[in-house]
């Protein structure tokens, strides 16, 4: 089967993710968008790993999954923190410091 399908899927996911990061005002949504990007990366890696027939890609993917989990943990904690202080998780309100 063609690798291109996988890559295409990855690219699409990546773009959706990026769009989400840029467009979404809700912190959680942005987090999820980032997860999308990471997953697109995983797809790429696995596909390539298959293509080159070595485990590097798989290993990489495993690491990414693990790290992503940690990241999300931290991220959600932070969202909670902000929600506790501001009763809102809209990113637009996070513009106290500028210039």
């Amino acid at each position: 089967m063609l690798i291109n399908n996988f890559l295409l899927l990855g690219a699409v996911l990546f773009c959706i993710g990026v769009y989400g990061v840029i467009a979404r005002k809700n912190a959680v949504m942005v987090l999820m968008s980032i997860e999308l990007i990471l997953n697109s990366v995983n797809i790429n890696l696995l596909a390539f790993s298959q293509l080159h027939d070595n485990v590097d890609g798989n290993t990489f993917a495993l690491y990414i999954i693990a790290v992503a989990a940690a990241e999300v943990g931290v991220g959600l904690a932070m969202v909670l923190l902000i929600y506790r202080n501001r009763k809102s998780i809209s990113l637009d309100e996070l513009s106290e410091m500028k210039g």
Partner: protein
Amino acid sequence: MLAHEHEAAGWFLEHAWLIPVIPAVAFAIIIGFGKKLPMKGSEIGIASMLASLVLAVGTTWQWIQRVDAVHGSEGEGALARGVFGFARGLVPRAAEGGEPYVEPVIRSWTWWQSGGIEFGLGQHIDGLAVMLLLLVTFISTLVQVFSLEYVRGDRRYTHFFASLTLFSAGMLAMVLAENTVQLILGWEIMGLCSFMLIGHWWEEQANSRAALKAFFTVRVGDMGLLVGVAILFGAFGTFSIQETSRIAMDPATSQTVLLWAAVALFIACIGKSGQFPLHTWLPDAMAGPTPVSSLLHSSTMVVAGVFLVARLYPVFYNGFDIAQNGNSANLIAIIGGITIVIAAGLAFVQNDIKKVLAYSTVSQLGYMMMGLGVGAWTPAVFHIFTHAFFKCCLFLCAGSISHTASHHSFDMKKDMGGLLRRMPITAGAWMVSTLALCGVPFFSGFFSKDEIIDNADHNGYKVFFIVGLIGAFMTTAYMTRATYLTFFGKPRGAAAGEHHHDEAHAEEHELGLATVGHDEPADHTSHHEHEAHAAHGAHDAHGAHDDHASHGKPAFGIVGESPILLVFPLIVLGFLAVVSGYINAAPFHIEKFLEWVEPRASEFAPAIDHATFSWAKAMPSIVLVALGFVFSLLICKAVFGEADSKLKGLTQRSKVLGAGHRFLVNKYYLDDLYEKVIVHGVAHPIAQAAYWINQNVLDGIVNAFGKGGRRTGEWVYKYVDQGAIDGLAVNGSGKAARGTGGALRPLQSGKVNQYGALLFGAAAIGALVLVIVNI
């Protein structure tokens, strides 16, 4: 250089360089401990001058021997003939041209060297140098003696003598300069001293301004000196005057270079010798004490310019090729000529006696320049010689008068008159000198000035021949006027013992003698000057008092002769004013001066041929002199004459007496006629016009140079410097930077999404571009 000369020359010639060194050392001593000495340092000054004088005499003597040795005529008693040339004068003139060139005594020591160029110090002793050495040391000595009395008790007595001494040192150093650099050295030192001396009473704005003006104007000329010397060095590769002369005489030398050098150097002479149009500083410089005027502005400093031309004559001679183009003109002659006339005209409308003398000096310097310009080297230099004595004498007379008679005023109209009987010696000295100045036959001035005029004709400079004659006429005119105002008529103002001058004014106005010099510009300046002198009068007032006391005279009122210290120099100078001419009295075929001073035609000096004297040729000038005298005397009689006093009385009585009234009135009309028609109608407008031009145009230019400089300075500073360079370039860029900084800040919106957008946007664009580029 020229080592073989040294054995030949005698001790004095070998050690002539001591002459300037002595006063220089003396200066240091005076500055150092002058104040502690019994006579406040004046003795050191005079002693040094005497020492120099002795050396100078010795040098002269040995030089004359040297010349005679070369020229075969016997050397003993040469000194005697040197000074009293007429003693055994009737020696037939030596054969033309055939005489060999007398090697000057040249010694030079390396002073410092830079990049292979040697700057030396040394002496270049030839006739010209010897003559001036003698002259300067002699005059300086007399002037210092005169000053002993004149500035006694002055608050800066010591400084005064220090400056005088240093001044003489500078002049002497310049006179025997072996190279142009040394010449500049002496030249500039003189400039400095003139600044200090003219501004001696600097408490008064006017004086310090005059000092500033003098120094600055001269300095403008010095620029020419620097450039000229640079050109000469650059082109000839030497500073040595002899070398320069030799190369200048060398036909192979490019004439353009010489021309440029000559022009540049001549600018310096214009500044220094008060030639038109830079002469305006000289009259102002009269703000200085009278001895200063008599030393600087009659016989030494101002002739420096003439000396420079005479010294580097080959450069000018070939630069302007004076010999070749016969009856045409050249820069030196033109400037000289103009100066003669202009200055003489101005001298006619002055009320300040010193200003008359100042302008007369300018005019005489004009003669010297013109003489050099028309190729009459020897007469011109001879004129320096004679002029020094009588002009110095005149100045000292003025000083003696103001010191003793007119209580430190120099206004002839207001504060003098009728001094003939009171100050016989002063008057006598004055008369003699005046006659000499006017060029009356058998007085020294005649022999020099007439020679100049004569040679101008002979060398084919017709125009300048005429100019010379006119000058002679005018000279007599203004000198007669001055003499009359000072010594004849009735005592006025301070001379009559009055302290304040209102009466003088009143008197004149009553008589309607709104005479020359009382119209706007003249009056303005004379008034101005008057303040100046009143002020310094105030300054050494106590000095004046105690010397009056010491001579047991009343402070004011009917005055007698000045104290001996003042009179002695007058006598000496007066005597010389008569006899000094006989060293080179063409009419009697005495041409010692020519023999001793003039360098013979050689590779170092151009051939100068001389007009042979004949009374016929001398006649025009003699006649004109006479005319000038008569003309001027008539006016003076009419305007300021005895009639006035009678008139005064009569007009008072005219109120009661009807008889004779008409007659008096008519008489009065007569005065009126003289006054209005002749003076106002003829002499006055011209003179005034000249004066106006002088004050407003030329002087204006000189001042405008300063003022304009200031203005340009301010403008440049304000707009270019602070505005453009500093404002735009420097501070502007700073502002720009901050501005951009400000413009960039909105980018930092604080919004996460925008940050993200920018982040990815930049990445994407970068990627896109690079992908496209690299595929």
